[in-house]
């Protein structure tokens, strides 16, 4: 065996989400193989289905995948089930590609459970409020700091534009879509998903107030059809200039500022997600991170670590701008690169601010996270459709979540 390539001949199976980051890694793989002699079979499946596939694989225990990628909200579940391994020892043994200090700290911290590192962030983002500077100026509005102000601004925009422009647009589609955005309101109103003693907290008055406000502002000043808006519809509507505000992921900034698809380039202001109260249980900006994990069943954990640390290293992240650019890089070096500033300068500061305030508990991170999100999504959807009051809808979700938590 070649001393410089101790893992030559290893054959890694990697499961990743369809994402620009993945495209970048895929394109760079030959370099990795050349450097280490490790062959990588990269399988790409859509983000929405990857968890199912991964869990089936983990529970069958066949050790088919060495490295997998997923949202950090699953970490507690995976750890508890013993599906993934801590990386600290590996990092100590094979530190070559790993530069802990280079990761955006907020991102890396999400992958640490009980002091142990379980994942390497591949990409991350937060949420912020986007508003139309031109309209705000025209109608004499200032960027809202509270949700009440959001509602007022939305009202003004809708009325002053004679209903031509929606006051605000947000995701309404049932499930992770509406929960992802509504969660900002929940936290911002002083609510939370789960109490410290592990009970569902959606029955609280804060939660009800936040949902009531969320539903009301969308019903009254939102666009037609918002109840089925996902990330895409929401983004497109805003970038076509048909809405005065939106709250969504920071990556949306990249779309707003892309002249090949957007008609609001340069007209958008970015500001953190508002809060309604100062008695917050957590921030109203999200911290959404997707990391690489090493499977417990893997027979070649060291090679797997080499790959994971290589794929998330700053060199690769910077190179990826030339392949499949995206604003979700996790390396500070990449964030500060010229390329990044050129592309995403317009919202970079707001983005970094949001990340800094980002709430890693933004979505529930317990074992039953998915189910809780699903139940909450139904409640949001019901309130939005008016088929139940915010309070009743949440009460139902609360009961369901309690059941799920106790299962």
């Amino acid at each position, binding site marked *: 065996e070649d001393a410089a390539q101790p893992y030559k001949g290893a054959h890694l*199976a990697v499961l990743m989400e369809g994402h620009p980051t993945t495209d970048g890694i895929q394109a760079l793989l030959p370099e990795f193989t050349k450097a280490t002699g490790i062959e990588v079979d990269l399988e790409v499946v859509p983000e929405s*289905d990857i968890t199912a*596939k991964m869990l089936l694989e983990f529970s069958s225990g066949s050790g088919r995948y060495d490295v997998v990628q997923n949202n950090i909200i699953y970490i507690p579940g995976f750890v508890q089930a013993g599906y993934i391994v801590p990386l600290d020892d590996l990092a100590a043994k094979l530190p070559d590609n790993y530069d802990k200090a280079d990761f955006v700290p907020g991102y890396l911290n999400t992958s640490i459970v009980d002091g142990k590192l379980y994942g390497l962030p591949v990409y991350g983002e937060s949420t912020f409020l986007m508003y139309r500077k031109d309209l705000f100026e025209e109608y004499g509005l200032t960027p809202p700091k509270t949700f009440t102000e959001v509602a007022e601004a939305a009202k003004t925009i809708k009325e002053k534009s004679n209903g031509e422009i929606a006051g605000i647009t947000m995701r309404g589609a049932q499930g992770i879509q509406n929960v992802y955005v509504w969660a900002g309101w929940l936290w911002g109103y002083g609510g939370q998903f789960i109490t410290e003693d592990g009970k569902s907290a959606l029955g609280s008055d804060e939660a009800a107030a936040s949902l009531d406000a969320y539903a009301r502002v969308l019903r009254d000043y939102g666009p037609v059809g918002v109840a089925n808006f996902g990330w895409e519809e929401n983004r497109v509507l805003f970038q076509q200039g048909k809405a005065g505000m939106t709250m969504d992921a920071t990556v949306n900034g990249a779309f707003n500022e892309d002249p*090949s698809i957007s008609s609001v380039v340069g007209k958008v202001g970015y500001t953190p997600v508002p809060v309604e109260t100062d008695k917050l249980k957590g921030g109203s900006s999200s911290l959404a991170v997707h990391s690489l994990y090493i499977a417990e069943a893997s027979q070649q954990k060291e090679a797997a670590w080499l790959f994971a640390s290589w794929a998330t290293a700053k060199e690769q992240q910077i190179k990826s701008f030339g392949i499949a650019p995206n604003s979700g890089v996790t390396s500070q070096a990449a964030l500060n690169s010229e390329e990044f500033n050129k592309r995403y300068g317009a919202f970079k500061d707001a983005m970094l601010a949001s990340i800094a305030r980002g709430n890693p508990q933004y979505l529930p991170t317990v074992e039953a996270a998915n189910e809780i999100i699903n139940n909450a999504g139904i409640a949001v959807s019901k309130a939005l459709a008016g088929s139940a009051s915010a309070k009743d809808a949440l009460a139902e979700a609360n009961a369901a979540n309690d059941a799920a938590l106790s299962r």
Partner: protein
Amino acid sequence: MRRIAFWIALAILLLCVLFPLYWVVATSLKIQRDAFAMPPVWLFSPTWENYAKVLSNGVFIRAFLNSVIISLSASVISVGVGALVAYGLVAQDEAIKRQNEKFVLSLRIAPPLIFIIPTYFLAAQMKLLNNHWIIIGVYAFVNIPFAISLLITFFEDIPRELRDAAKVDGAREFTIFREIFLPVALGGIVATFILCVLFTWNEFFIALVLTGRDTQTLPVSITSFLTFQGVQWGPLMAAATLVMLPMLVLGMLVQGQVVRGMSLGSIKG
């Protein structure tokens, strides 16, 4: 008058069918901004960029080959086995036939959920997860009942006397099946085959769970354009168009084999 009504009806029909297709193809040829413009951009200079992107992607090409291999093999097996079973059943008494047909139809009822999880565990045990055969087998298992139910219908239209005559002429059952039933019911066989191919060609859920990197099929591969950060509409639609083309060609080719009134003139009365 009637002719005009016919052509108008046909035009409306084609419009309804083709509009979404037009949209898909047009989007694949548009740059992103035009794709979502409202009012729609009817005139645009096409870009081949999306196709170039899809075709330069080795994964897509491999998935294409996987899809071809898997859907053709599974469909050939399904129609082959289905036709044999259908032939056997058509020859039985009414009661036996119905009883079996009911059973066969009921096999189609189970949602994939029910068998996908057990199958996954089984395949994992047998280390077959990255193997073409497991997915071909599952697709055959899913499509055989379907093929049987349809082919019984088509075989039943074949006059009983033909089987009798062939028996008198010294044909074995299998020969009758091959020489008479298959050709005479060709229209039905072709329709069934097309549908089986389509089902497997487009099936997503089973493929997602049971395929691995080497066996991934197009519908799974295509969803890599549905990312956490949005749908890559241009490449997705280009890929969708590319996925559709071979099926349309296949449809046209095999449907050309069908002759109207194949069984005419075979019996009197």
